[in-house]
């Protein structure tokens, strides 16, 4: 048993933090968020660092580390409110795209940011019923997709889209070029403008089969676990930063002749926030470990971690806004951006109560 980061993990964390501090100070993030929502020039620089292939085996061109290391980076991305397509590309799309060495190559080099188009207008993220249908094409691994998806993260930045679509025999996973003919991508106005959503409509667009019905369900479920664990880690990063900002503010802002952090109504809130963030961190690390090691606990650990960490991040941001007072309610102050990300995390793939129902089913049924 050992519950601290390895030296390698500490180095990875520090280098990620340094890179993000230099490249994505919060003023830059705000500029991107109030502008186009992303900066296409930056993704190759991120790929350059090797982050696209952290958990890809060395012989496939990756760094040969694991999901734990990916989580170390994701927590830092959350802290920095990094506005690029890491989550969509590496967490959501890569596990399926890895099935094709050619597509993997495009992802690893940074040439092709990618994403996953899962839920349709029903808003459900299931692995056995999806809103897109597919017909096989001339070749074994080619097909044509028909249907509509919503809530596709970073779609505007993506070159490749993984799409679960039904064929005879069940659901299969497909890759589509984001600008394929007979497809249409449209931006969806998104509260968190650092991670925008899009709708992807398919009216016969050409697709390449990544995983057939015999294995796609399990693969998509494992992508869900990965994504939930990743979002938990990201939430921890978001919450940690919001808490830091609050402690700084409470230590310096004076009212009634004292720093406001000397008032217990303030300090007790921050102490509770600390406790929740540390509890969330514990779950996030556990979930990441379980996903990394393919533990049978992974689905329930990931669901529990996402539920808890998302709520902790939302609440920590709310406490942070309250402690900051009026200034924390302004557009100028960065806090609202952390808050919107925390809410995004809470909503994507199902709100905390939905995740808890998955936990309850494993305990009670």
């Amino acid at each position, binding site marked *: 048993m050992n519950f601290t980061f390895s030296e390698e993990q500490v180095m990875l964390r520090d280098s990620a933090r340094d890179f993000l501090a230099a490249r994505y100070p919060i003023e830059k993030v705000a500029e991107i968020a109030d502008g186009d929502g992303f900066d296409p020039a930056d993704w190759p620089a991120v790929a350059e660092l090797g982050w696209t292939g952290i958990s890809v085996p060395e012989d496939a061109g990756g760094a040969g580390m694991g999901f734990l290391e990916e989580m170390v980076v994701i927590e830092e991305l959350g802290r920095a409110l990094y506005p690029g397509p890491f989550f969509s590309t590496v967490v959501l799309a890569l596990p399926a795209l890895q099935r094709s060495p050619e597509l993997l190559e495009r992802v690893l080099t940074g040439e092709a940011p990618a994403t996953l188009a899962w839920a349709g207008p029903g*808003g459900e993220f299931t692995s056995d019923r999806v809103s897109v249908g597919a017909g096989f094409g001339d070749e074994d691994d080619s097909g044509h997709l028909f249907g509509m998806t919503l809530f596709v993260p970073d779609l505007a930045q993506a070159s490749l889209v993984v799409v679960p679509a039904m064929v005879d025999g069940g659901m299969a996973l497909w890759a589509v070029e984001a600008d394929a003919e007979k497809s249409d991508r449209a931006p*969806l106005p998104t509260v968190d403008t650092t991670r925008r959503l899009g709708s992807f409509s398919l009216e016969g667009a050409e697709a390449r089969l990544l995983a057939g019905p015999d294995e796609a369900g399990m693969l998509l479920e494992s992508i869900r676990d990965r994504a939930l664990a990743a979002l938990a880690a990201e939430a921890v990063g978001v919450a940690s930063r919001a808490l830091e900002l609050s402690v700084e503010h409470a230590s310096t802002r004076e*009212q009634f002749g004292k720093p406001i952090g000397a008032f217990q109504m303030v300090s007790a809130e921050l102490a509770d926030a600390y406790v929740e963030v540390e509890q969330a961190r514990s779950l996030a690390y556990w979930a990441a470990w379980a996903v990394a090691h393919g533990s049978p606990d992974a689905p329930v650990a990931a669901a529990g971690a996402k539920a808890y960490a998302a709520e902790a991040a939302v609440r920590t941001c709310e406490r942070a806004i309250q402690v900051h007072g009026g200034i924390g309610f*302004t557009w100028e102050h960065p806090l609202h951006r952390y808050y919107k990300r925390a809410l995004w995390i809470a*909503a994507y793939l199902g709100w905390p109560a939905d995740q808890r129902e998955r936990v309850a089913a494993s305990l009670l049924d």
Partner: protein
Amino acid sequence: MDFRDTLDEAAFREQLRAWLDENIPPGWGEPGHREPEELHERVAFYKDWSGRLYEAGFVGITWPEDYGGRSGPLTHQVIALEEFARSGAPEHMNVIGLGMAGPTILAHGTDEQKATYLKPILTAEHVWCQGFSEPGAGSDLAALSTRAERDGDHYVVTGQKVWSSFAHIADYCILLTRTDPSGRKHEGMTYLILDMNAPGVEVRPLRQITGDSEFNEIFLDGVRVPVENVLGAEGNGWAVAITTLMNERASLGIALTVRLEVALRRLVELARETPRNGGRAADDTLVRDRIAELWCELQALRFTNYRSYSQFLASGMPGPEGSTAKLVWSEANQRLTKLALEIQGPYAMLSGGDHAYRDGIWQRLQLRSRGNSIEGGTSEILRGIIAERVLGLPKSR
């Protein structure tokens, strides 16, 4: 104790409802209806509407007839607040004038000030704003540093105010200043009536978490205010400001309750209209429990307000227990709007557009709600007032 209207109250309510039915502008409040785009058109619309409300007799109900009011009973005022909010009618535009400036002038103004300022508040001929908070003096209002220096028969005012709604369209401002910086901080404050058109007044909008700008900053640079514009007396500003704040909280309670009632009604609609697992979100036990909880909080708030209004009626002064309503409302509204996000599932991530429920209204309301526990007295300040002034606990700061 009787929770029903008296015959007289029922008649007044009926009259008001009938007037509103006939007079609310066509299309108002329906989906797709938009207010005039241009600021001056919006101001013209609201001035006209407010004037008509006044003419119809629904503004200044409890204010003295001598100053344009109707010298009516407080219960009619309560009924008017309720029915206006329930009807969804446009608001009288002079929120600060009616709720804060007017009652303070009534309590502390000279006869001349009353004669000059009160009636144009009711008719919305003059729009008012408030200049209390400063960047360095938020919860600790008495730490304010906007200086007013006597120069002959004027004060020369320099400083900065913040969180002022309506300042960009206001004619007058109730302005709290420091005239004597040498004394203790609650002393040496003076309450002025500021003409917003005076040279040296600059107003800049403040963009908030939702992207909208409801509030403004006011920059004051050597603004000359005649000495007859002092409200109360020089050095007595703190006591006058307390009157303003107590009146704000007293009139706010009922309005906030009805606002919550309207929000809950819309939440119920949302829960009924949102599909969930083949049924409706309204069938989800967790959603049901939380809606029922909010309903209880709302009903309780309504009668807590009525009870504290009855106290007000008996004593003539709003009491510190009025802090309860704002505290309860802000937290209930935060829970309510959060629940509205959860009910929407992933649609809660959308800020608008064709796919969002009613153009993402709940997402804006939810973000906006985070200000509720800060504006008009933070929850921390309100809890302190209850602890010290209602429960009599020892001072904690």
